[in-house]
Structure formats: structure tokens, C-alpha cells
């Protein structure tokens, strides 16, 4: 990645246009809504142009723009929370989908036993992997997806997440465990079948 604070404004615009598709898929994964994602990305791009002079070159330019988007997404989430648009987090009741993955003694159920996915780095280069990832994220319940996304996409610590969404840390671990198991199972189903 070339980090250059001497970019002309035109260079910057070109970089923004190039990074836009990735900003959009990121925002869509987090917001689960295409129109809302378009809005958030639009705002982030405008901010990036307005604040152009404050880019110090300490991080890559694209990373800096992603930082702006993440800030917007967090801000938007806080507003939604304030407006009471969230379903309350249910307490730690049993999750049937997870129970079905294991036998009574805790061993993997034959049908749910993880299979090899091949080279993980290749997965990230594979467009189909991301389509499956996207679909599997949408299949998660809102609250579960929100916590997973804050942790794994936005990179917040579980402690920070608890402050943002108002849950206990043990609760966050339970939610993340379930999210990972469900995503893992869903991706394996959608991805391996196609590439087999």
C-alpha cells in the first residue's frame, strides 16, 4: 500500500472511488440493509473529502477512510439504540440450532462435524466465499449478528461491546460462541458444496 500525503485531490478521489465497493460491502454486512449502507458510505466519503487535510499519513489512506466509516456506523448504531429500535437481548436460554450440532455427551453430531476448508487464504480471495459469508451473516438473528460484527468486523473488544449494547461480558462470549458456530456451519454448507 502506498501511503502518500502528497497525493493531489484527484489522486484522493480516485482512491475513494476504488475503495468504495469494499466500504459498501463492509457497511452492508454491518447494517444488514443495502440502502442504509449506501447512505453511511456516502457520508463517510464526504467526510473523507472534507477532512482531507487532517489525513496524517500515519496509517494507509484506505485504512483512514475505513476508520471514518466505522465511526459513522458506530454513531448510527448508538442513535438506533437510543431510539429504541432494538429488540431486547434475550437471556441465555438454550439455542436449539446449537444443541442440534452436538450429541448429549457434547461430542459433534456426525452431520455437523467440521470438514476441512482448504487453504484459508484462498478463501478470502474467493468471491464466492464472500457471497456465502454475506448470506450467512444475514441468516443470523439481528442481535447476534450485531455483536459478531462489532467484534470481528469493527474490531471492538468484548468489553467495549458490552458498553455499546448493554450486555454483560459473559453474555457477549455466549453470543459470540453461538455466532461463530452458526456461521461456521452455514459457510461450510454453502461454500464447500459449491467448490467440491
Amino acid at each position: 500500500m502506498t501511503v502518500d500525503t502528497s497525493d493531489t485531490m484527484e489522486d484522493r478521489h480516485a482512491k475513494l472511488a476504488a475503495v468504495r465497493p469494499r466500504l459498501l460491502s463492509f457497511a452492508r454486512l454491518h447494517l444488514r440493509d443495502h440502502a442504509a449502507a449506501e447512505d453511511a458510505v456516502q457520508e463517510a466519503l464526504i467526510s473523507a473529502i472534507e477532512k482531507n487535510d487532517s489525513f496524517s499519513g500515519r496509517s494507509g489512506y484506505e485504512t483512514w477512510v475505513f476508520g471514518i466509516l466505522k465511526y459513522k456506523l458506530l454513531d448510527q448504531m448508538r442513535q438506533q439504540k437510543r431510539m429504541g429500535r432494538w429488540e431486547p437481548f434475550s437471556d441465555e436460554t438454550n439455542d436449539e440450532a446449537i444443541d442440534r450440532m452436538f450429541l448429549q455427551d457434547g461430542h459433534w453430531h456426525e452431520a455437523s462435524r467440521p470438514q476441512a476448508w482448504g487453504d484459508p487464504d484462498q478463501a478470502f480471495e474467493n468471491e464466492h466465499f464472500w457471497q456465502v459469508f454475506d448470506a450467512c451473516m444475514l441468516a443470523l438473528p439481528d442481535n447476534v449478528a450485531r455483536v459478531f460484527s462489532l467484534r470481528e468486523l469493527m474490531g471492538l473488544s468484548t468489553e467495549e461491546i458490552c458498553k455499546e449494547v448493554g450486555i454483560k461480558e459473559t453474555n457477549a462470549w455466549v453470543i459470540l460462541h453461538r455466532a461463530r458456530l452458526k456461521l461456521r456451519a452455514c459457510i461450510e454448507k454453502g461454500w464447500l458444496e459449491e467448490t467440491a
Partner: protein
Amino acid sequence: MSMKDCKTATKLLSKQLDTPLTSRERLTLRFHLLLCGACRRCEKQFQLLHRAGEHFDQAPSKNDPSDTS
């Protein structure tokens, strides 16, 4: 945690991505993984998911249009 308890093992596999495990938890998990291929694969997959976020703001995507005209 019993030797066959993969469900608890996955709980620790998940937890170690969010917070350091106690030494007891770590040992129990390592021992389980030695004997359980399914949970070793699960560990790799959890780690892959854990790195998903990096993909967006670091790796230049090959799908990006290079011409911005």
C-alpha cells in the same frame, strides 16, 4: 470437561479469541485438540472468521475496478 466434550471445547476456542484463557482452560483445550481433528478444524475456521474484518480495510481487493474513470 470430559475428553469427548467438543461443545465445551468450541466454547473455549471461541473465548480465546476474545480474552486470554486461564492456564487450566488452555491446557484442557490443548489436550482435547491433540485428540480431536474436528475441533482442530473448528479452531482454524473460527480463526478465519476472526480475520474476516482485516480483509476489508487491508488487503487490496482484486475485484476493485482499477480504472476509476
